[in-house]
């Protein structure tokens, strides 16, 4: 039963107050994009066994989407941050690397 802190309202929210939204930082490919790019965007997933950047919505709270860095093997949460973030923020990456020196962003 995950516990994630909503970066907007600061509530440490129970999983049952949230809705999961899958992998984060996907780049959208629209009309004119190649079949491969579009397939990659819509279906192909990193699905790491390890650090995973993902989307959550504070459904039973402020209703806002936010992003989280979480390990899918230990379920450790390295941090949550605003959904309006094109790629993982520096401080999150540093926090992960501090705990897992050999980890790097794929």
């Amino acid at each position: 039963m995950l516990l994630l802190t909503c970066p907007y309202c600061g509530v440490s929210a129970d999983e049952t107050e949230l809705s999961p939204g899958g992998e984060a930082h996907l780049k959208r490919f629209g009309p004119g994009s190649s079949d491969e790019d579009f397939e990659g965007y819509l279906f192909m997933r990193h699905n790491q066994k390890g650090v995973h950047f993902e989307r959550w919505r504070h459904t039973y709270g402020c209703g806002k989407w936010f992003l989280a860095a979480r390990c899918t093997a230990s379920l450790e949460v390295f941090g949550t941050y605003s959904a309006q973030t094109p790629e993982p923020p520096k401080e999150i990456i540093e926090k992960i690397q501090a705990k897992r020196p050999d980890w790097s962003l794929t």
Partner: protein
Amino acid sequence: MRHYSVFAIVKEAMGYHQGWERAWRNPTPKAHYDAIIIGAGGHGLATAYYLGKNFGITNVAVIEKGWLGGGNTGRNTTIIRSNYLQDPSAAIYEKSRSLYETLSQDLNYNIMFSPRGVIMLAQTEHEKRGYLRTAHANSLQGVETRFITPREVKELCPIIHLEGPRYPVLGGLWQARGGTARHDAVAWGYARACSAMGMDIIQQCEVTAIHRENGTVSAIETTKGRIGCNKLGIVVAGHSSHVADMAGFRLPIESVALQALVSEPIKPCMDVVVMANTVHGYMSQSDKGEMVIGGGADGYNNYTQRGSFQHIEETVRALVETFPMISRLKMLRQWGGIVDMTGDRSPIISKTPVENCFINCGWGTGGFKAIPGSGWAMAELMAKGHSPLADEFGLNRFREGRFIDESVAAGVAH
């Protein structure tokens, strides 16, 4: 292979069963095999079995990170049915179901296939129309199903509460020849038969790398050394993306936890399998007497084989409402497994970007029932390069937008 029978048991009983031999050998890996299967779960072992039985390919190794049958094969709710809506699904699941019917005899190992019948409850007008449609489709697919009335539902399953205040039972899709089987026995039976054919089942052996030579698979690196192969089959539900990554390609898959639970054993009170998809729960009674219960999968990526309790709660809540008598039963044990979820929730049995490397994954919450059919198709694909049962389940379908979507008629339940 020592033939199993009641006579063998009586004979051994005289010697207090000191004479039984191993069910499968415990070999050390050879340097090279014609085919290697990664994953000694039901699907992997069935693939190996049919490679040998149908195509005479017996120089085969099945590599297992842990212990055989220790993944989702030994963690599911053992439901077997083939009342699927879409043609490709109905084809492979019905092939599977029909193979299950004679599997005990084929393997000389009692997998306790119990064709007790499966009811999928219709609890909304929309769901009812969906199952009526499925019944029509099944009639053309050669799958015996029938939409039955609430009274028939009650006769088949007296403990059900038809007039639930929220979702009265409007009928159900009935597959009389669906049922259950003993999950461990399926893996063990296949393992024993594979071993008897001379195949090597190598447990406690983790694959660490997949070697390719100009685009063609050549060998795998394992914790027990390098093993060469002409063909490679990846059959590792839950860790498909992880192993595919070693072979250098990505998959349209996310790994999530699926949970189940059993009650304490009670005397027989339920002779059929019931699925209530509107409320997300399904239940049957094992031969031991436990009520075997499953529900929906978690929504987030997870490799822990533990799920979130809310899903157990949602499922139990639904089933207490559907079968009020279970309220005073107790949950004995809950557990979880990791399942592959694909973009359309249907499986992948396919060639891959790597020559001679094949993958069988993405069974989501419905893999157990498919084991024999999946192994049959995967073996054919590996041996002949294509299989009518597998062709529709290729990796290319996502790029083409050619979905096989079962959610159309069924909700969560498998």
